[in-house]
Structures are given as structure tokens and as C-alpha cells.
């Protein structure tokens, strides 16, 4: 990628752009062998292996490995699922747990040396996850309330003067069917995308400065330092985004289960 940039720039610095996210297939022209796809597959393997190893013994007194896995699981189970959804939470724990670990792992790939690419910066993956969440929270609501009462609840919020429905009904419909899945996926995508771009700017910029005249060489460390600082910042954003996606999914499910709108 870097060499591509440098040869493409012909000496001058070309700032990283959206094109940098368009990674070519690793093997020939097979679009199933791109880096993001490989990373997603790797994340599935890593998460599966880690948690199976951590939970295999299910000991009362946990080993360090089990404690680590349990802490993450307990966080999703208790702080996200139970506190948000309430007494029916156990049904949704596997989904929320998968969501959190999957997003978190793929996000953190963005700052793992050698991997260094957040798969979630490819919008397809957040789309898939948002569609799953969309289907689940609507299905839960329809099963709980019935299709027509559910639609009625969305379109005609109780306790509102009738003329307000002219304004409220389109907003509510848009919220439930367009805004929620779209914001869910775009928030995650945009954060990962922007974060990666930011890191590219500072690290590729620092690299480019190093190749310049002596004055520019002296500035280069600052760019690298900033890049390292931003890497830590990115780590926080990556964790936060995984948390937010899971939290909002839990909230939507809780809303679908709630009797009153």
C-alpha cells in the first residue's frame, strides 16, 4: 500500500484517501481473498479458539485464562444484556456476546502490528450486523405483540394529540425502519474508517517526511509520535464502538420487549 502510494505519487506526497481502503485480492482476481475477508475469517477463528479454551473447564475457581474470558462474557451478560433487557435477557446473551466480541476483535485488528486494518472500516460488515440486529428486534417485537399492534404502536404513539401524527408517524416509521439500522452500521463504519485514515495520514506522512530534506527529517518524529498517540486513542474508539453497537442492539431489543412504547 505504501509502495503503491509512493510510486503513484511520483515523488510528491499523496495524502491517503478512500482508495487506500480498496485492497486488491491476495490471490489473483478472487474477490474472496481480500485482506478484510481474511481478517474477518481470522477473527472468527481467534474468538472461537480463545473462548472455547477459556470456557472448556468451567471451573468454580477459574484459571487466569478462564477469568479473562469470563470477565468479557460477564460484562456483556450482566452490564449489557441483563441491565438493559431485564428478566428475558438470557435469550439474547449469545447474540450480544457474539456481536461484541466479533466487532471488538475486528476493530482491534486496526492497531495490531502486521494486520493493521480494521475490517469494520469496510461498510459491508457493519451492514450485515445492522441487518441482523434489525431483523432480531423487529422479530422479537412482532412475536411479542403481533404484527398489527406493533405497527400501530410505532405509527400511532399513544397519548399524542391526533394532528401531531401527521408529523410523528413518518418520523417514527423512518426511525424504526431506516434510521436505526443505518445509524448503527454507519456509526461503526465511519469511526473505523476515519480512525484508520487518521493513522495513515500521520504514519505515512512521517515516513514521507523522513525521505525529505534535513529540515523535514527533524519534523518526522513528531508525526510518528502523534501517530502512536492516536493509536492509543484508536484503541479506545475501537472498544467504545463495539460497546455502543452492542448496547444499542440491547436497547432496541429491550424496546421491542417493552409493553409501552
Amino acid at each position, binding site marked *: 500500500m505504501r509502495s503503491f502510494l509512493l510510486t503513484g505519487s511520483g515523488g510528491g506526497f499523496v495524502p491517503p484517501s*478512500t482508495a487506500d481502503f480498496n485492497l486488491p485480492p491476495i490471490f489473483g482476481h478472487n*474477490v*474472496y481473498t481480500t485482506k478484510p*475477508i481474511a481478517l474477518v475469517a481470522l*477473527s472468527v477463528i481467534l*474468538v472461537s479458539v480463545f473462548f472455547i479454551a477459556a*470456557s472448556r473447564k468451567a471451573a468454580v475457581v477459574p484459571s487466569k485464562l*478462564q477469568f479473562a474470558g469470563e470477565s468479557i462474557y460477564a460484562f456483556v451478560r450482566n452490564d449489557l444484556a441483563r441491565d438493559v433487557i431485564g428478566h428475558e435477557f438470557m435469550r439474547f446473551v449469545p447474540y450480544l456476546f457474539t456481536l461484541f466480541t466479533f466487532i471488538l476483535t475486528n476493530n482491534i485488528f486496526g492497531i495490531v502490528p502486521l494486520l493493521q486494518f480494521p475490517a469494520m472500516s469496510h461498510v459491508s460488515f457493519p451492514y450485515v450486523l445492522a441487518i441482523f440486529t434489525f431483523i432480531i428486534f423487529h422479530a422479537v417485537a412482532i412475536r411479542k405483540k403481533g404484527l398489527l399492534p406493533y405497527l400501530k404502536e410505532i405509527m400511532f404513539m399513544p397519548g399524542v394529540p391526533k394532528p401531531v401524527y401527521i408529523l410523528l408517524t413518518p418520523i417514527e416509521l423512518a426511525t424504526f425502519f431506516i434510521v436505526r439500522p443505518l445509524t448503527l452500521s454507519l456509526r461503526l463504519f465511519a469511526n473505523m474508517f476515519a480512525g484508520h485514515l487518521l493513522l495513515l495520514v500521520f504514519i505515512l506522512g512521517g515516513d514521507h517526511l523522513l525521505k525529505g530534506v534535513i529540515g523535514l527529517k527533524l519534523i518526522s518524529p513528531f508525526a510518528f509520535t502523534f501517530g502512536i498517540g492516536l493509536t492509543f486513542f484508536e484503541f479506545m474508539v475501537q472498544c467504545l464502538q463495539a460497546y455502543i453497537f452492542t448496547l444499542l442492539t440491547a436497547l432496541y431489543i429491550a424496546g421491542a420487549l417493552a409493553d409501552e412504547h
Partner: protein
Amino acid sequence: MSFKSTAAEAAANPLVPHTAELIVGAIAFTLLFLVLRSKVVPMFEKAFAARTEAIQGGIEKAEQAQRDAAVALSQYTAQLADARGEAQKIREEARVQGAAIIDDLRSKAQEEAARITASAHASIEAERQQAITSLRNEVGTLATELASKIVGEALDDQVRQSRIVDRFLEDLEKSK
């Protein structure tokens, strides 16, 4: 081929999804979901349940021990109270018995004293009777003696009479 065209479109707009990535993403996520749901979640839940049970078991054991201790304590307290009551009873009995013994002895002593007094009285009475009897005999004899003396002297006046009585009494004094 169709994948390549979508990939090319996506190059221009990062918001357009790649078909290949959508498919892989869905499969990967579903796969991970199935693995975590079947292998990981039940095991963690099992560990949590076992831990809760262990803690609750410990608490129950401690509560049982406390209950046992309370029962033992009440038993000991009851036994102690019993023992105290018994001691009290024994003391009371002893006191009553002591009093009875004293009463008994006192009444015996009084009886004895009464008996002694009575026998003394009886012997005094007997002696008195004896004395009276003997005195009566003597007085009879004396009176007869005196009467014969008076008759013998031919009493004509008062002085003489009294002299005779005095002499008789003096004789009596001397003869004693």
C-alpha cells in the same frame, strides 16, 4: 465477474457494500454465533451456576452451624436452670427438715421436762399425804393426851386452862 464490477463501484464510494464481503460477513458472524452459543455460553453459565451454588452452599452450611450452636446454647442454659432449681429445692428441703428436727427435739425436751415436773409433783403430793396422815394420827393421840390431862387437873379457871395449854405445847416442843 459480477463481484469485480461491484468491487470497482465500491472503489468510488466507500458506502457501497461488496457482495463478497456481505456474504462472508454474514457467514462468518453466523458461524461465530453458533460456536459461541453452543460451546461457550453454556459453559460459562455452568461455571456461574456452580459458583453461585458453591457460595450459597457455604452460606447454608454456616447458617446450619449457627443454628446448631444456638440449639446447644439453649440446651445448656436449660440444663443450668434445671440444676439451679434443683439446688434451690434441695436447700429448701434441708431447711424444712432442719426446722422439723428442731421442733421435734424441742417438743421432746418439753415433754421430758413436763414428765419430770409431774413426777416431782406426784412425789411431793405423796409425801404431803403421808405427812398429813402421820400428823393426823399424832394430833389425835396428842388431843386425847391433852384432853385426859385437862380432865385430870380439874380445870376451874381461865388462867389455869391457858397454863395447861402452854405447858402442853412446851412439851410438844421438847419432844420434837
